[in-house]
């Protein structure tokens, strides 16, 4: 390795584990016991031979720039327990002076390097532009029909009054959502489903339902007039409705700090969505990378909290410039040596408000808040500025809210004193995701 101080923490290694079993199995391989011929290169790779139950040891290589893994074991998990064990060993003790990779590792590393140098993609077949245009038109027409139908449904709702909603139940909305799926507008479908759940959410539901219905209506109206909107706003509307981003956005190279990573599972359990929040250390720009996993499998991309990767981020158009795809990476990820600077409660809400100008449907905005003091309460938690009287409420239910366990962890870290917290700040309040204690630069991912 380039320098010993750049090793990751064990928590960061374990964040790569695809599941709990791998985490435990990897933990048991994290000592020097089963390993032979361990080593690492200056360009950011580590390798080793791991004694298994068979006669031949497994050959394990990790490319830290990916991170990417290669192991001769039969496991279909990525990374496998051997890769995790090797990384844990490297994390705890290092792997000695930089060295030449042995043949079996060098081949794979060379292949990876060669692949990285090849120009990205380059569409294989000539694009059938005419066909693509026709398909886009057809889809736009179907969405248009769906939007008209949805408007009708919303008008009926308001004509008959929200009061009946508590009795009429969820089924009707589920049906409407299904029709939005048929209309190829998954964004609308998701909002409709959300709308249907509100009447069972307890006191204050009518106001919340009116608000959500109105924002859905706003989206419908925006879609109908999308041709006349400024390009950025039009892109936002298209992505909110559920169309894939068209065209490349801006590419930004920076050193990106991973601020949080967490998974949510769709209500039907079929899809795991992983959200990874990053921030450019030089440019200060926030980025949200999404990755998806099919049933029973975690999403493929894992970026441990607290690592910094030098990479190119390709931002998608619209949606307040948050959504990005991870592009080329230029160096191995290293731990961040400092705590990001936090802002006050007021500044956090201002940032959210400003972002709404570009995307009025935005639920929240990524903010590092601090120094703040968590205030646990029977009715609700707050994060209060360490100085002054301002505080943000912490939502305990609804989208993006964290478990109680994570909040108690935050309280335990603070002990009544100031902490720095990263989280999502929105109209419901502030949902903490990661925290730093005053005397440590090591981030703690809240459960």
């Amino acid at each position, binding site marked *: 390795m380039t320098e010993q101080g750049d090793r990751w923490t*064990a928590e960061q290694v374990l964040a790569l584990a695809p599941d709990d079993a791998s985490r435990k199995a990897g933990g048991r391989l994290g000592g020097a016991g089963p390993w032979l011929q361990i080593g690492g290169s200056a360009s950011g790779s580590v390798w080793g031979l791991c004694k298994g139950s068979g006669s031949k040891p497994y050959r394990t290589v990790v490319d830290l720039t990916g991170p990417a893994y290669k192991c001769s074991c039969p496991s279909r998990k990525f990374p496998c327990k051997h890769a995790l064990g090797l990384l844990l060993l490297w994390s705890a003790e290092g792997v000695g002076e930089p060295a030449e990779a042995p043949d079996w590792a060098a081949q794979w590393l060379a292949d990876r390097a060669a692949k990285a140098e090849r120009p990205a993609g380059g569409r294989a077949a000539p694009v059938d532009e005419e066909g693509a245009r026709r398909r886009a038109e057809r889809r736009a027409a179907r969405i248009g029909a769906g939007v008209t139908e949805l408007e009708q449904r919303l*008008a009926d709702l308001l004509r*008959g*009054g929200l009061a009946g909603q508590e009795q009429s139940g969820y089924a009707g909305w589920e049906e409407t959502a299904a029709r939005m799926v048929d209309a190829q507008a998954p964004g609308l479908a998701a909002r409709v489903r959300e709308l249907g759940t509100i009447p069972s959410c307890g006191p204050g539901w009518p106001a919340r339902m009116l608000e959500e219905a109105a924002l859905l209506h706003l989206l419908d109206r925006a879609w109908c007039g999308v041709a006349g909107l400024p390009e950025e706003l039009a892109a936002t509307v298209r992505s909110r409705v559920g169309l894939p981003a068209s065209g490349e956005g801006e590419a930004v190279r920076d050193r990106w700090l991973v601020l949080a990573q967490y998974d949510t599972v769709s209500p039907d359990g079929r899809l795991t969505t992983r959200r990874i929040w990053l921030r450019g250390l030089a440019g200060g720009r926030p980025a949200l990378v999404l990755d998806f996993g099919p049933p029973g499998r975690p999403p493929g991309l894992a970026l441990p909290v607290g690592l910094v990767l030098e990479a190119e981020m390709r931002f998608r158009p619209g949606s307040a410039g948050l959504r990005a795809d991870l592009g080329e990476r230029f160096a191995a990820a290293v731990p961040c040596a400092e705590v990001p600077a936090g802002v006050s409660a007021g500044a956090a809400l201002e940032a959210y408000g400003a972002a709404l100008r570009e995307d009025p449907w935005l639920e929240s905005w990524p903010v590092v808040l601090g120094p703040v*003091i968590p205030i646990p309460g029977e009715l609700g938690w707050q994060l209060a500025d360490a100085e002054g009287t301002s505080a943000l409420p912490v939502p305990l239910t609804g989208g993006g809210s964290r478990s109680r366990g994570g909040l108690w962890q935050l309280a335990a870290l603070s*002990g009544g004193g100031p902490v720095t917290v990263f989280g999502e700040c929105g109209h419901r309040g502030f949902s903490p995701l990661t925290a730093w204690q005053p005397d440590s630069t090591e981030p703690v991912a809240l459960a």
Partner: protein
Amino acid sequence: MEKGDEGYGEWEELVAAALLGTDRRRGGGPAGSPEALLDAAAVHAVRRRAGLRPAAAGPRPEPAPRDPRPAPPRAAGRRLAQLLAGRSGAVNGGGRRGTAPDLTELLPQWLAAAARHGYRAPNALVPALLDAARARTDLRPQALALAGTRGLWLARLNPDWRFALRGGAGAAGELPDVTDRAGVERLWQEGLFAERVALLGAVRAHEAAAAPRLLSTTWATERAEDRLMFLDSLRVGLSAEDEPFLEAALGDRSRNVRATAAELLSALPTSALAGRMAERALACVGPEGVTPPAECDAGMLRDGVVKRPPAGRGERAWWLGQLVEAAPLSCWRERFGGLGPAEIVALPVAAGDGWTEELHAAWCRAAVRQRDAPWSRALLGPASAPPAAGPGTASLAERAKLLETLPDEERAQWVAEFIRAHGLSEAFQLLGVCVVPWAGALGRAVVDALDTARDAGSYPWSFSGVMGLAERCLDPAEADRLEALTAAAQDLPDAAPGAAAYWAEAFQRLVATLRLRAAMLAELA
């Protein structure tokens, strides 16, 4: 949107209109279409969200008191997180456990080792530690001690963790200073039972005579079961200072309280009760033979002797046993002309009358009660002798109790010798009283015996109890020696089918667990 916005000035008005429905809206306000209502609501919603202001902060919690102890090294902290996370992971019930170590058993050891090093819990893990302490009462004192002031601070904020504030070693911070008479008095009068027991312990540790004084203030009004528990808590650190109180308790309304008071007094060799019992016992037992008491008089009753024997036992033997059990062992030397315990035990006293067994059993109970090592040693006899031929008792449970009075090293040696002579099948209880980690000779005896059992061709789960103990108690340094046993051998001709593979697996798990324990302890150092 402009129009709608003018029509519905207030958000509440919009919500009211939406609840009622535009069809039912009567004259008065501007008649609105559903679209106009939604337009207006959309403007309100976005405007409200964009214009949000922070709330007023509620009262901040008092900062947690500083815990001066250092946090454990990072690797150790991560291990604790792993152990706490594995706590809920159910150990597959019954059957084979594979080669994976059992993390649940390692958590208590981690906590004990961390306590020896004087660490506090890493802050981020305090909630998980409190949850673990809530779920497992056996972990509670150590988990709470490790969680320290931060744990108590959190427990005050979260009702789920209230238990942490009630008594127990971890809540020591909650007890008043023992010199604060008013504070002590108040907690004694108003405290929960566990708090009062903890308070009694603290007061006693400070001044032995103060505890009985405190007890006397409320004794008459305590419930019988509480009186019993308070008396029981005097067992640790019993001293002559407690005698007057115990003597008074001999007249208690509750039979259990009386019996416990008598038992405690008899464990004080200088007490008046012990003297009275010695007098009675010496009258019954001597070099010339054994004459059990002919009746159970009022004095004996008051001193805790139970008159009615359990079914199947003779009255006189029953009384004899109780007298000898409660008499100080020191009284026998003179009675038997200056002989030591081993010689006295070896005498054929009363062999002819058939009282020997009764007498030896009573001496065993006395040795345990009075924690008398020389007598225990004499009653245990040589470890290599067949248990049935032992001088004192053949019962393994009683032998285990006798062993507990011996010094650690001698205890381990005795058990090692026992295992070498008799194998493992009867050693489980005896191993249970040995100090962890097992001394070298003891560990080697256990491993050799396991190896012998394997060679004999039985299945390893016949020894799962000892295996489990070994995982917890073997010195991690034994792992290297054990490595040789983990190779899967061919099944021996006489062996049960597949036994060799199961044994290899069992030894692999044992080695893996020992390695893990070694790593764990190294991380904490």
